């Protein structure tokens, strides 16, 4: 064990000088993963533990669409479209009915107006009868 730790310390020194190879660094990593280390090497344990966990850090695509259709969403969309289109249709129908009623009312009023004016007209025109009577009586004399 003391031999091994001496070896490790030597490796660490070379690691700090950036002289270790990748395989030697891997050796250090496995050594520090294995468990107890000398307290003077606590920093190295933390460092290797960190570099190993951060290596697994992943970019998660939060916005990746799921592979299969989401039927509930589609059903909801269809339902919304149906309800709105039905609503719009009803609204339009309602509006048309109102328009028709208004038109009917207006026509009726117009006819009423014509009727009253017509009555006025006929009473006025009836005076012409007197005129004709008197004229014809004069001619016949």
């Amino acid at each position, binding site marked *: 064990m003391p031999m091994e730790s001496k070896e490790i310390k030597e490796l660490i020194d070379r*690691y*700090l*000088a*950036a*002289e270790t190879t*990748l395989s030697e*660094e891997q050796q250090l990593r496995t050594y520090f993963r294995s468990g107890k280390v000398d307290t003077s090497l*606590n*920093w*190295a344990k*933390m*460092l290797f*533990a*960190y*570099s190993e*966990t*951060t*290596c697994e*850090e*992943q*970019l998660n695509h939060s916005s990746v669409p799921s592979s299969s259709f989401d039927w509930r969403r589609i059903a909801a969309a269809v339902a919304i479209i149906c309800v709105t289109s039905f609503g719009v249709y009803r609204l339009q129908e309602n509006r048309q009915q109102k328009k028709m009623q208004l038109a009917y009312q207006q026509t009726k009023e117009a006819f009423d107006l014509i009727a009253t004016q017509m009555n006025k007209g006929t009473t006025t025109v009836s005076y012409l009868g007197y005129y004709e009577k008197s004229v014809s009586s004069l001619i016949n004399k």
Partner: protein
Amino acid sequence: MKEAVYIETVHQIEQKLYRIAKRLLISHEEAQDATQEVLVKVWQRASELSHVKSIEAYAMTMVKNYCYDRLKSKQASNLSIEYSIHDKSHDQSAAFEAKDRLFFVEKIVNNLPDKQKLIWQLRDVEGATFEEITEVVQMEPIAIRVNLSRARKKIKESLEQIDAYGI
């Protein structure tokens, strides 16, 4: 190349790019943007790049350049301020959890100068060879070793301090 193999390769490169970008830009959103941007550019030139190794090195160089540009721009400096505020709140809660020590390592690493940070990330996290690092950072191998050594020593010192005085 079989399709599955190809997808797997792209996925691996993507993760690598993301980790490098996150190390340099700190913010997750910024790193995500950087990764996407670089992948699109790599995709456009994929036919010119013959083998996977060169694609990877090329992509890493691109992401490095992209991140350096972002760091230079004013926008990025605003973001880093924002992040440091957020950092403090994390700090307080972490202070009560001795087991959350890896967080301190992250903080120490993130406080390294950009060049050292990048080289440390490439070597100790991504396990890149010195040739690969040379290609990405465009520096002499000796300069790379000096920077890497400084980064490792700095991390060691900071961690020893934490060990000795608590937080």
